[in-house]
């Protein structure tokens, strides 16, 4: 696959992901949103870019 094709696919993926995130958040109550934010914070702390293997 060429770099252009990979980038096009990646951009599409990002757009779809953004759209799904918006849909997900739209249906939440204030309490659900707070809980979601707390869970997300905890998850982010565990996601260290240093863990991504060097290629």
């Amino acid at each position, binding site marked *: 696959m060429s770099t252009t094709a990979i980038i096009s696919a990646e951009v599409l*993926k990002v757009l779809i992901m953004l759209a799904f995130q*918006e849909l997900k958040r739209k249906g939440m109550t204030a309490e659900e949103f707070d809980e979601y934010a707390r869970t997300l914070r905890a998850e982010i702390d565990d996601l260290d*870019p240093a863990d*991504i*293997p060097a*290629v």
Partner: protein
Amino acid sequence: MEITIGQFTLPVLLTVVLGLIYSIIAIPNRFKPIIAVLCGMGLAMLGMVYAETVITAKIVIEYLLAGLMGGAAAVGLYEIQAKALKRKKMPSMIIVALLIPTFLLAGCATFGVKPWGERTAIEKSVFFMDFYKSQYNDTMAMATNPEITEPQKKIVREKKKLLFNMKLLVRSYDDYAKGGLTVPDGLEQKILDLINRLATMGG
């Protein structure tokens, strides 16, 4: 810089509608762009009547300009689609076929959602964290793929560098947001710049 992917919905919808109209009614090519722009402006006017309670000259001009640009973008999309179909270039057709539902989905998802400028700091923070998480998972999946290609390796290396910066900025932003403190000037813009880079350099 605002992220409003829903703004592309009008041109995409117009492209679909115009494609249907042009396939049913034989319209000379020179009139097609004018019809598209007029349709865009007409739809923008309908949108204005639906969305605005007070209509001023400024608002009318803003909607007309948005409709004009939407119509012009639809002409561009229609031309790309027509060329791809004419040349039977499958990759182009696939990209166009994927783009249309994607933007429609994006448009539906952002319909009724607060504009970026009206969101609270915590709402923005959640958006940033969501974005970071998805980009991290994406990069990790690519990096651990045993069949990774050279172009993908290059993307992984670039994304990894950006993710280091992004994590620091996103966590910092969230600390201000959840503490109810004023977010320093420029912090949000720095994160949005990183998002733009991550989204356009291949994820």
